[in-house]
């Protein structure tokens, strides 16, 4: 006679060490096997899209910092690009180069956090996490030099950057770039070939390219499936068509591939920054002449960038007043969660955490 069992419901989150914020999952378990999960979100909902309607176009920039607070610069940039598209502002070339440099630095910083916390979710007791935070700290130091703050940078403005870079920035960045590849190699040495990590992440949480595209998944999660879709190549914004870089793709779309894709993307980012530094015009304006109380013509515009987490876009509607009529944020993290349920079904609780960690979401962006 078989033992009669019944599934039980485990509530993971909203306060849990590895839900990366206030994400909640109602997991139905059969022993350790996840039968079903139901993501419950909204614990961090601040109504940013509604708040945008009550702020000026410039005044909304500080609030975009609060979306994906791991990579604030990318959010600023995407929003500014949308408004620039709407108002027809031409950004000076020096500012565009600096934006590329900053966006790639932000990508390094974000991937360091993503991989660090992913490995922490795998159970590597804080060692990779702290090693990666040490490097991220250096990027954040540089951002602090630029903008004066370490998390909510608020550095981009409509038509460029808020200020020119200080003189000591470029030498410091150069020193950072010289050391960074060695540190990425060290991370690879630390855990890339670790048998336990391979056992935990290889083949776990597989998603196919068709499924990922159908679920509107973007960024490293999509590229880990082997599908090369990077907006920097597919729809080059800023000056990305001038740089020579590769789009790393995975093999089968499992957690290990996502980890590897992020590692490789950091290397490519270093490459892009080095090329951008070579071509960066030494003098020139960093901000187009944009009136402080900008009122773009009636209409709507959508600008998207390849943020570290995927396609981040802002859909801005203007009614020719000083405040946006409607701002819609294409939430990368939320859409990347779409396939979570399919990805985790049938895996163990431990895998649920690993798969969730490998998607790399930021709850500020999920809930907005």
């Amino acid at each position, binding site marked *: 006679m078989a033992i009669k069992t019944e599934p039980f419901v485990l509530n993971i989150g909203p306060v849990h060490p590895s839900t990366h914020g206030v994400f909640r999952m109602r997991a139905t378990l059969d022993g350790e096997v996840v039968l079903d999960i139901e993501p419950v979100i909204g614990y961090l909902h601040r109504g940013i899209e509604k708040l945008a309607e009550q702020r*000026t176009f410039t005044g909304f920039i500080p609030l975009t910092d609060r979306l994906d607070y791991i990579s604030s610069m990318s959010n600023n940039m995407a929003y500014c690009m949308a408004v620039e598209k709407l108002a027809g502002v031409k950004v000076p070339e020096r500012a565009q180069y600096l934006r590329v440099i900053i966006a790639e630095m932000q990508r390094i910083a974000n991937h360091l956090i993503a991989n660090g916390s992913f490995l922490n979710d795998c159970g590597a007791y804080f060692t990779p996490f702290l090693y990666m935070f040490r490097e991220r700290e250096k990027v954040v130091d540089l951002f602090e030099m630029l903008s004066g703050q370490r998390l909510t940078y608020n550095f981009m403005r409509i038509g460029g950057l808020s200020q020119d870079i200080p003189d000591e920035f470029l030498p410091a960045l150069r020193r950072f770039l010289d050391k960074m590849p060695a540190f990425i190699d060290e991370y690879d040495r630390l855990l890339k070939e670790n048998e336990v990590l391979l056992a935990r992440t290889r083949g776990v949480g597989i998603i196919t390219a068709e499924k990922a595209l159908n679920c509107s998944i973007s960024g490293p999660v999509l590229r880990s499936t082997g599908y090369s879709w990077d907006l920097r190549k597919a729809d080059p914004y800023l000056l990305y068509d001038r740089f020579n870089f590769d789009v790393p793709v995975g093999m089968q779309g499992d957690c290990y591939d996502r980890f590897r894709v992020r590692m490789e993307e950091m290397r490519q980012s270093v490459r892009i920054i080095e090329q951008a530094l070579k071509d960066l015009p030494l003098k020139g304006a960093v901000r187009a002449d944009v009136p402080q109380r900008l009122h773009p013509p009636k209409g709507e515009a959508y600008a998207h960038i390849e943020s570290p987490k995927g396609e981040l876009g802002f859909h801005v509607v203007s009614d020719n007043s000083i405040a946006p009529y409607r701002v819609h944020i294409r939430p990368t993290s939320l859409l990347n969660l779409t396939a979570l349920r399919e990805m985790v079904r049938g895996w163990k609780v431990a895998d649920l955490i690993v798969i969730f960690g490998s998607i790399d979401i930021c709850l500020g962006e999920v809930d907005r």
Partner: protein
Amino acid sequence: MSKFERYGLGILKGMTVTIRQLLLRHPTVVQYPEQRLNTSRRIRGNELIWSRERCTGCATCAKACPQGAIEIVTSSNTNNNKYEVETYRVDTGYCIQCGLCVEACPYDALFLGSSYERAKYRRGDIVQSDDALLESPERPASGYYHPRLAEKMPEQTLLIDKITEKR
């Protein structure tokens, strides 16, 4: 199926990294209250600093503030044809240190503070007005959006230049 294809060599490789960190490298730590780093010259610190002399009461800052934290009351002085600022009040609790007011000010009358340990014990204290907003030794101004001020500030300590400490 994945397997233990490297016979545990990957594990040993990882262990060399950690033991190297233990034996050869210094920890990357700053012992905060005793040991302080120079912050950025453009630091957007805790409090807003206002210059009574330069302020004309145009309220551009109040309009630029996304949070509506700045309140400014002016009266017109008909004798010398000028605005006079009666109250300048900042609710620091609302302030998100975005620096948009400093950028907006056409007369360089606003600065962000460069101090960062300015917690208050009472809620009433976080609403600051008039004289409490002036620059003072405890409230040095930061060089954010004021390049000439920034030049005088000490250079930022960078982690890239190796902040390490012996045990």
